[in-house]
């Protein structure tokens, strides 16, 4: 897989941040802040919480930039994982009752989103979308709700009006199928 210039630049910025280059770190923030803020906002649903997540995530990225080289992922993937994990932590701390707009449930992705710059990610996203298409509608919807909005099993059950066990099975089987499909399309090596 060829690495796109944009990802390469971000990797270089991470490398420089690892040794204390604040200017590189500022550039890294500028290049990724709006995407990562949006990712967190979808999960935590409150701007003030998303701001807290973004702040904590970038402090963590600054402190752990040296670990990036070992992650073997695209910089955006590595950083998104940090933001998502912290968002989920915040959700666990702050949210108890499900509160999801039904319209959001139907939209797996925001098609009005700016086109991704990275050819590699586009290709990966393409096979990911193909694989998601292969899932049953309820499996796909459950996985998307959990992924984008940070819903727990029981929140999903409430939102989808399905028994908890059914929701858990949908997710588990859906992910199993996804693993099989992603491995087949070569989107993820060694899957």
């Amino acid at each position: 897989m060829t690495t796109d210039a944009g990802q390469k630049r971000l990797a270089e910025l991470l490398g420089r941040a690892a040794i204390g280059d604040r200017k590189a770190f500022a550039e890294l923030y500028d290049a990724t802040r709006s995407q990562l803020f949006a990712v967190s906002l979808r999960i935590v649903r409150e701007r003030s919480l998303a701001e807290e997540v973004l702040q904590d995530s970038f402090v963590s990225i600054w402190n752990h930039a040296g670990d990036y080289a070992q992650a073997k992922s695209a910089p955006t993937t590595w950083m998104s994982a940090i933001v998502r994990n912290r968002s989920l932590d915040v959700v666990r701390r702050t949210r108890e009752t499900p509160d999801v707009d039904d319209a959001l449930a139907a939209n797996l992705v925001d098609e009005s989103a700016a086109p991704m710059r990275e050819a590699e990610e586009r290709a990966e996203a393409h096979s990911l979308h193909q694989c998601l298409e292969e899932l049953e509608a309820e499996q796909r919807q459950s996985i998307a709700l959990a992924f984008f909005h940070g819903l727990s099993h029981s929140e999903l059950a409430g939102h989808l009006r399905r028994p908890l066990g059914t929701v858990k099975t949908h997710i588990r089987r859906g992910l199993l199928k996804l693993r099989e499909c992603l491995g087949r399309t070569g989107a993820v090596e060694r899957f």
Partner: protein
Amino acid sequence: MRKLSRDLAHALAAEYVVGTLRGRARRRFEAFIAADPAVEAIVREWERGLTPLAARVKPVEPPARVWKAIESRIGATAPASRGAWTSLGFWRSFGLLAGGVASVLLAAFLFISSGPRGEPVFVAVLTAPDSSPRMVVSMHSPNLLRVRTIKPWKDTADKSLELWVLPKEGAPRSLGLLVSGDTMIRIEPTDPRVIGANALAVSLEPAGGSPTKQPTGPVLCSGVIAPVRKA
């Protein structure tokens, strides 16, 4: 800690990345990730598989105060006077590209050569992420850098330590591999690698050095180049 089967690790990693693995189960799985590189690798695979979805979320601009807060937090670890030589925050607080003492360039030192009474003209204390000083790089003659290890690392027997200079713009440049104990490195002031460089770092690389001519392993220690202070 018992070992997870590959299928179970995949099932848990998938739910971990999707976010449905919660509470104590999530914490326990995080312990597995930390303990078992194979489990961590599986989590990374799922992140690579699923995160492209996140890239399709419509960007939302965060307010400027977020960056202000980040800046103050990463700068908050900068004690300006006390323990200056041993604090990573101190070095970071300079900013590698800032003016003043930190912008004194390696090439300039190479031209100046040694100071009065043969003292080194600069010392760069390279500190680990936990702020402990691990190596000292000093300039002793017109073209000779000396790298001394203060505290060696464990488990580096089958690896190499590589010294890098950080230029103002662009990627780090290798100054070569370090041997245990002291390493002497000959550098000419006109060497393009040192033009504009003002910081040094050491990374852990496969035996024989980085295969990509860029740091691939973790940065073990780093520090800016600064002149020896007059007492």
